[in-house]
């Protein structure tokens, strides 16, 4: 019996209205672990033999929400959502912090797989007794705040029993109007301001008429292999996390200033620049006027880096969101030409409530704004002016996209597909302004200055494209950070080497080490993800000779700041990419070799790759 897991996964078919319990083979669980890795394996098993034909927004696609063996034991409880990504047509492991992850395990389940499509909006309610499909018509169309309020009350009342004690709130993940309307890069939301943003899985939920998945368990966490060791390690790792004073104090939010002024890698006006020196966009300007809770955490976390902000005066009074959080800060701030904290906070609250992904839709809106700047999109196309820095205009645009109104219908396709459409409509090559990799909009850490952590191939060689939380480095350490964190499923900001590996051994009883994970499991998972990317389809296919690359913008020299003139170097990108592919055991074009597949136990992936190899 695998330890750390409950051993059961819910398998829900919304078309048939049927619910089953799935038990996976132990070997599979050990090889793919959980979360991102296990989701990829499930997706291959169910859809792999005709992957290119599967429509990510059709009933055949799976929406998967999975925990991992470390979830809820190790600090930073998260859930990983996955499926065929409507953006990349590959598979992304997208995580978000939530008590849902713990509640699921307390109820006796490791995860949920959802297939098919419900006739009318529904939500899933998971308790110790099992899973129920419930009507969500009254929730459809509701923004984040309303959804949370209503679901908390409804489920509390539903589960309350007289004279047993007060019923606590469940944990849940949900979508906003953006996901409901299948905005291709929509997020899966939790706790108002947490999002599983990359991959567009909010749209997958929306395409299934699935508003939310709710869980409330009353049991203890699963058994582990070495409970006394886990108890000791639990205390030790928290002692270490508590020392991370700067992370707690700053969160990621001070980045709004220093990622520009210092490392010169923050997107400004659709990445046209990556430097600014706007001191009013620094941490203190958010902290002293807007923070109402300076340290906010999720289940079993002492990094507690989140800050809750609330606007108390003026026209945006009542906006609640976690700001500054670097990615939101950058993408709804300087990348839109907004350097005013209050404006960025407002946009963050709007985005959260609509269930957009701040990074991805921020990228798409900036793309639109650049097209407006260049006269490709006009006031007539948009219905209004879209000037840099105009918070009201971006507010309006975000709503239009969420509702697929007017130009919003095109932009709702995500930056890449919107660019393709606009190129056709306007006869202008706008793809050069689209900052995406393999359909996934790029996170707010640029590569041109060379001062930030993503390498020149960080996005270009990654099967998760622009996902800044999972960038490629050396086919070794990159596995430890994101691939392990996304599969164990725990928050990367609670990652501690070596304690996390000791913890993993104590929970599962398996022979896990950093080295073994990085050379075996991690490579196995990434290789599987690479195959999904290579197969792609049905609307878009990636060409290994062209698309495993940085966006054109990253080859333009930086126009300003101390790193003015710097840009990505094509020769270096090509060389590093080839070297990375070699380390991974893939050919020069990034196609896994038969040998490598064999070594990783993935021989079944060989047939579709044979045609691709030269």
């Amino acid at each position, binding site marked *: 019996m695998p330890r750390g897991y409950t051993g059961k996964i819910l398998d829900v078919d919304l078309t048939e209205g049927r619910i089953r319990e799935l038990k996976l083979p132990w070997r599979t669980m050990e090889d793919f672990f959980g979360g991102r890795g296990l989701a990829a394996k499930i997706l291959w098993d169910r859809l792999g033999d005709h992957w290119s034909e599967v429509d990510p927004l059709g009933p055949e696609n799976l929406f998967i929400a999975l925990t991992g063996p470390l979830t809820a034991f190790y600090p930073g409880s998260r859930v990983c959502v996955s499926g065929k990504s409507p953006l990349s047509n590959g598979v992304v492991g997208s995580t978000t912090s939530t008590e849902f992850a713990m509640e699921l395990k307390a109820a006796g389940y490791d995860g949920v797989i959802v297939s098919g499509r419900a006739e009318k909006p529904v939500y899933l309610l998971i308790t110790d007794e099992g899973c129920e499909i419930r009507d969500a018509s009254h929730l459809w169309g509701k923004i984040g705040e309303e959804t949370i309020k209503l679901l908390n009350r409804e489920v509390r009342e539903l589960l309350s029993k007289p004279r047993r004690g007060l019923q*606590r709130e469940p944990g849940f993940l949900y979508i906003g109007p953006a996901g409901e309307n299948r905005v291709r890069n929509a997020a899966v939301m939790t*706790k108002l301001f947490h999002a599983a943003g990359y991959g567009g899985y909010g749209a997958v939920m929306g395409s299934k008429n699935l508003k939310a998945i709710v869980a409330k368990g009353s049991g203890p966490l699963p058994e582990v292999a070495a409970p006394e060791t886990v108890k000791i390690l639990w205390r030790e790792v928290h002692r270490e996390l508590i020392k991370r004073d700067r992370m707690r104090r700053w969160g990621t939010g001070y980045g709004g200033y220093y990622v520009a002024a210092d490392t010169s890698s923050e997107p400004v006006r659709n990445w046209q620049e990556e430097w600014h020196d706007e001191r009013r966009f620094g941490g203190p300007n958010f902290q002293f006027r807007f923070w109402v809770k300076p340290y*906010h955490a999720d289940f079993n976390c002492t990094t507690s880096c989140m800050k809750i902000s609330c606007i108390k005066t003026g026209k945006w*009074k*009542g906006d609640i969101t976690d700001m500054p959080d670097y990615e939101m800060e950058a993408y709804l701030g300087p990348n839109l030409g907004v350097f005013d904290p209050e404006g960025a906070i407002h946009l963050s609250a709007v985005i959260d409530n609509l269930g957009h992904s701040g990074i991805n839709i921020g990228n798409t809106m900036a793309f639109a704004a650049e097209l407006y700047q260049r006269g490709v999109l006009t006031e007539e196309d948009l219905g209004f002016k879209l000037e840099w820095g105009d918070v009201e205009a971006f507010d309006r645009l975000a709503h239009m996209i969420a509702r697929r109104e007017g130009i919003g219908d095109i932009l709702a396709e995500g930056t890449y597909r919107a660019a393709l459409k606009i190129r056709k409509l306007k006869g202008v090559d706008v793809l050069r302004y689209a900052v995406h990799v393999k359909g996934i909009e790029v996170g707010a850490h640029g590569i041109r200055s060379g001062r930030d952590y993503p390498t020149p191939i960080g996005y270009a060689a990654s099967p998760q494209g622009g996902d800044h939380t999972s960038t490629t480095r050396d086919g070794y350490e990159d596995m430890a950070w994101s691939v392990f964190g996304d599969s164990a499923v725990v928050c990367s900001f609670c990652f501690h080497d070596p304690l996390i590996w000791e913890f993993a051994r104590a929970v599962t009883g398996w022979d896990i080490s950093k080295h073994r994970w990085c050379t075996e499991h991690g490579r196995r998972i990434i290789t599987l993800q690479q195959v999904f990317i290579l197969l792609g389809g049905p609307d878009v296919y990636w060409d290994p000779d062209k698309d495993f690359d940085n966006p054109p913008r990253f080859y333009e020299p930086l126009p300003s700041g101390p790193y003015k003139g710097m840009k990505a170097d094509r020769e270096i990108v090509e060389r590093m990419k080839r070297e990375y592919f070699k380390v991974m055991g893939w050919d020069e074009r990034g196609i896994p070799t038969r040998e490598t597949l064999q070594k990783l136990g993935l021989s079944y992936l060989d047939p579709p790759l044979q045609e691709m190899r030269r």
Partner: protein
Amino acid sequence: MERTVWIVRDHLRCTGCRRCEIACSLHHEGWIWPEASRIRIFMPFPGLEVIHLCAQCDDYPCVEACPVEALSVDERTKAVLVDREKCTGCGVCIDACPGQVPFLHPKDGKATICDLCGGDPECVKVCVEAGYRAIYAVEEEVNVNRKLFARPPLEVARDIAVNLYGEKGLEVV
């Protein structure tokens, strides 16, 4: 007037990490079991973390109400003690409590109430260690004010909501 340990609770400082629940259930149940923790964090809306915990009311309405005399007051710590043999799981103590703090154990259905860990509460240790000090232990005389902290969590949440979110707070719970 004797001095006893009392747990101060400051909801505004609670981060929602729930390590207190983990520490409590590790101590009392031997494993991580949030729904069996005697200290319970409610969160009707993000940011509105409410620490729900026995306040050792000076008049002990729960003890008074128990029809089978399963509840008693510890001589030394003044915490409420539950005799699990006598308890029938009727839940009357829950209704008697001004904050509806007690709950029936998810496994055996017996009334479950904080016993202050015999005078050295585990929950405060992890909260203080983490630097949040949303809960911490003091030694003070038993007094009538303690009862004021036994409040239904939704009521507390409404207060916190206005404190944090201003007028918007009136809408979110």
